[in-house]
């Protein structure tokens, strides 16, 4: 079977192509050279349409225990968005935290072909993979959450060397089948279990005499030394607290040049100026990002409306529980490993703080100069459900639309933001970098987010439309591994994506101490903790794709 996409306008930043008309040939799931003799079995005339690789969401809470608590907590939210089955798709529910099948279909229907769960607790990793295993069409993967686990903190207190810590992290990454390492409120989730209610960057955990700064440094060093492509994925300290822009700047400085990804930076860019002692720190933070080339960020844009915040940061979630709307919330301490907190939120444009949060996110997008180091996220579902991405893209690409929106928010917030004076509009090429080429590069995916010969045929085709929200909501065609899965914004075929992982080496003797620890303190045997490959593949539709380490030959 040879498929030809004829006459599309290609935006493929991975290969330096921006708006060039070019045919694409697909065979056996991959992009191939124009064959000299083979007969085209299926041709799509897409002359004048915009072509990009399938989009990749590098931070979206799609699988794992806290997401399922979020689902079960909010039946009233699902009732407003019940999804009937069709001949080819399963029934489900949507809005803030959609069911797994609905998540896969809706991502694909927006032209996305991969999403990464950023907070896989090692002890809950089975669930994350089972949920992602029930998420159709898109590829997936997870960042394994560390940094509040007692095992690591005990190692640090015992002054174990970096090599031993690297071994432990590589072992855990493999046991939990992840592609990267995440840290959430470094040490803070752990400190909350000792009744600490706040933990600053240089504050010691009440039980273990180590600070968040030391934990970040240790983890980031391990990620680099192990050759994991994705930099340490950091949910910083002091989320949501006015004045945390200082914490964020200190965090950037404290990592001393090591690669670090600061996630949902919007929630960490708050100053204390103005009548309400809440102001935008976006300009200062963006300046630091522009200057420090080792730093990447995703924004975690908020959108107005109902959602639910789902986070591993139970220390901060507990602190914010009085803002729960509706007034119900869940916090959990989890297995000497981590924790989670679920707090429903209704972001309102007439609420000063929410309105300014909205503006801070957009300021960040527009003030960070290098599109390869910033990524388009709402931290689904924390800032808003992922289904708001087309609206967000319009805000970035269309200044007059953005200013129209700005004029409707809380008037005091309008005064506190520079947003109205920022003239930048994202180009089509920049959107393709944020949502495709850059995301693939930062997660270390080989053959994705790119339309070169030999790459996987994950391809999205849009009709040009000056209403960018409409354009990015309903692609004409989406191909996943060469299969036409979406036509005119609707799923036409259901396929199953792969699970992306990396496997840095470790010294097998690391398991000796772990076995002892599990036997003494944990609630399962170490052998039963590790997730085997067949757990992901035995259903006949899941698969694993192991990506090379940094610097390794492909």
């Amino acid at each position, binding site marked *: 079977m040879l498929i030809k996409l004829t006459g599309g306008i290609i935006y493929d930043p991975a290969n330096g192509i921006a708006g060039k008309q070019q045919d694409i040939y697909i065979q056996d799931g991959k992009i191939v050279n124009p064959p000299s003799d083979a007969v085209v079995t299926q041709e799509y005339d897409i002359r004048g349409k915009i072509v990009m690789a399938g989009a990749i969401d590098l931070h979206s809470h799609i699988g794992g225990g806290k997401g399922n608590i979020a689902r079960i907590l909010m039946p009233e939210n699902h009732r407003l968005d019940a*999804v009937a089955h069709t001949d080819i798709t399963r029934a489900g529910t949507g809005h803030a935290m959609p069911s797994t*099948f609905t998540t896969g279909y809706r991502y694909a229907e927006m032209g996305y072909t991969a999403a990464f769960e950023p907070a896989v607790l090692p002890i*809950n990793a089975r*669930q994350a993979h089972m949920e992602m295993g029930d998420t159709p069409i898109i590829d997936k993967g997870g960042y394994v959450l560390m940094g509040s686990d007692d095992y690591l903190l005990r190692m640090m207190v015992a002054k174990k060397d970096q090599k031993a810590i690297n071994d432990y992290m590589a072992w855990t990454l493999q046991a939990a089948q992840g592609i990267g390492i995440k840290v959430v409120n470094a040490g803070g989730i752990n400190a909350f279990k000792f009744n600490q209610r706040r933990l600053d960057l240089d504050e010691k955990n009440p039980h273990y005499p180590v600070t968040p700064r030391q934990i970040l440094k240790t983890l980031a060093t391990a990620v680099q030394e192990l050759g994991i492509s994705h930099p340490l994925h950091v949910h910083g300290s002091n989320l949501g607290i006015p004045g945390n822009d200082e914490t964020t700047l200190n965090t950037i400085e404290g990592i001393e040049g090591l690669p670090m990804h600061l996630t949902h930076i919007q929630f960490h860019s708050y100053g204390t100026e103005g009548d309400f002692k809440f102001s935008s720190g976006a300009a200062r933070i963006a300046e630091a990002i522009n200057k420090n080339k080792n730093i990447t960020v995703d924004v975690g844009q908020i959108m107005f409306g109902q959602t639910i915040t789902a986070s591993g940061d139970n220390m901060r979630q507990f602190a914010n529980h009085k803002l*729960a709307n509706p007034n*119900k919330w869940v916090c*959990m301490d989890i297995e000497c490993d981590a924790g989670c907190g*679920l707090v429903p939120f209704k972001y309102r444009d007439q609420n000063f703080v929410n309105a300014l949060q909205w503006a801070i996110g957009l300021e960040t997008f527009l003030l960070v100069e290098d599109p390869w180091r910033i990524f388009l996220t709402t931290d689904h579902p924390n800032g808003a459900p992922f289904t708001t991405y087309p609206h967000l893209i319009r805000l970035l690409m269309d200044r007059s639309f953005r200013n129209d929106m700005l004029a409707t928010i809380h008037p005091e917030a309008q005064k506190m933001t520079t947003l109205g004076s920022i003239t930048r509009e994202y180009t089509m090429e920049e959107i393709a970098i944020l949502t495709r080429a850059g995301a693939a590069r930062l997660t270390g995916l080989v053959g994705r987010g790119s339309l070169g010969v030999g790459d996987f045929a994950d391809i999205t085709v849009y009709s040009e439309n000056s209403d960018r929200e409409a354009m990015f909501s309903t692609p004409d065609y989406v191909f996943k591994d060469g299969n036409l899965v979406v036509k005119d914004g609707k799923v036409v075929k259901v396929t199953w994506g792969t699970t992306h992982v990396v496997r840095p080496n470790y010294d097998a003797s690391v398991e000796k101490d772990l076995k002892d620890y599990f036997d003494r303190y944990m609630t399962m*045997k170490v052998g039963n903790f590790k997730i085997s490959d067949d*757990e992901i593949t035995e259903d006949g539709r899941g698969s694993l794709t192991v990506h090379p380490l940094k610097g390794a030959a492909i």
Partner: protein
Amino acid sequence: MIEITEVPSPFCGIGTDDLSIQVEGLSLKVSANGCAVNTPAFEQAMTDLQPRINGEEVSLSEAVNHAAELLKNANQPVIGGCATDVNGMRALLELADKNGAVVDNVNFVGARRNFLAMQDSGWMNTTLAELKNRCDVLLIVGTDLESFAPRFFERYLWNQESMFLEDTSARQIIYLGKAPSGAASTSPNGKKAQVLPCSNEDLPQVVAVLRALIKGKIIAATEVGGIAIADLQAIANTLKAAQYGVITWAAGALVYSQAELTVQTICEMVKDINDNGTRCSGFPLGGKEGDQTANQVCGWTTGYPARMRFSSGMPEYDPHLYDSNLMLANGEADVLVWVQAFNAAIVPPKTDKPTIVLGRSGMTFEKEPEVFIPIATPGIDHAGHAYRLDNVVAIRLKKLRDSTLPSTAEVLSAMTQAL
């Protein structure tokens, strides 16, 4: 004979994974770390190997086709039991989606007390390893913990070592409501649990007064439900002074009208303690008959826990209306599918409606169902996944023997195909 070690159990709910089991053909013997729940569940003999239609042995495909025919012609099928592993639940939900069925887990009436409280106001909970390493005060409300899980104390409280307690035998155990049936709660150094018994009828009031005391309210009465206010005040003080208090209950044991309000009072009390500057966590007990597994898989597949329906083509949730027993009794449902892969003793409700049973081998019936298909047991006959009571940890079940029985998932998928 071979011996398999570190065997995880899907039966007890507390994720015990240190059993040793001797396998000889189809017969199993627990050789280490058994208990009153797990040992008989593993050792249960495999007696039925062949499906039956109206008592006559038939082939699997005949049974599947007959079942599919019944489902095809049904106006409102219900799938009850829902006691199986993750893959079994996946297949069950696919069948229900296609067939427009009601899905109802066998333990939902009990679990509903938790869901109603959780979905109304939330909770703050913990998991087994935190309890094992941190808990210095355990308050057990309305529940006989050791009959619920015989090895709970041994594994999670009287463990020799813990990371954050000097001496685990110094933990304080308090029973409120139901008294313990044995001595498992007596610490290794002989310290007995404190027991403040009251009737289930009085429990809501007793718990409400305890919460009021925790909030610092003045109580004029001197006793409630036969318990002195001074004793409740002492519990309140203990919880507020604890390093890491845990309050546990089994919703299934709170068998009285509107027990969800008691659960809610417990959960709000936990939050009050945290709001007042002390750490405390709730710990709901469950995890039997695949209940957590059913609720988890149903949760990610539909957004709702396992009492919902697909009758109008999309998921709808109602914790009261879609009670399969009531629907069968009042004629709303006309075909019952009963799925029980773990426990041969838990049989379908009595009904005159056509009944299809996917049951553990050895299930006996007062009235033979129209279709009976003996199915494999997850964790014995095939590998799989099951959730532990704390809802975070899915355990990897092992295959221990070669049997010819099909898995729940295989049978239900075949029925979906045949529809």
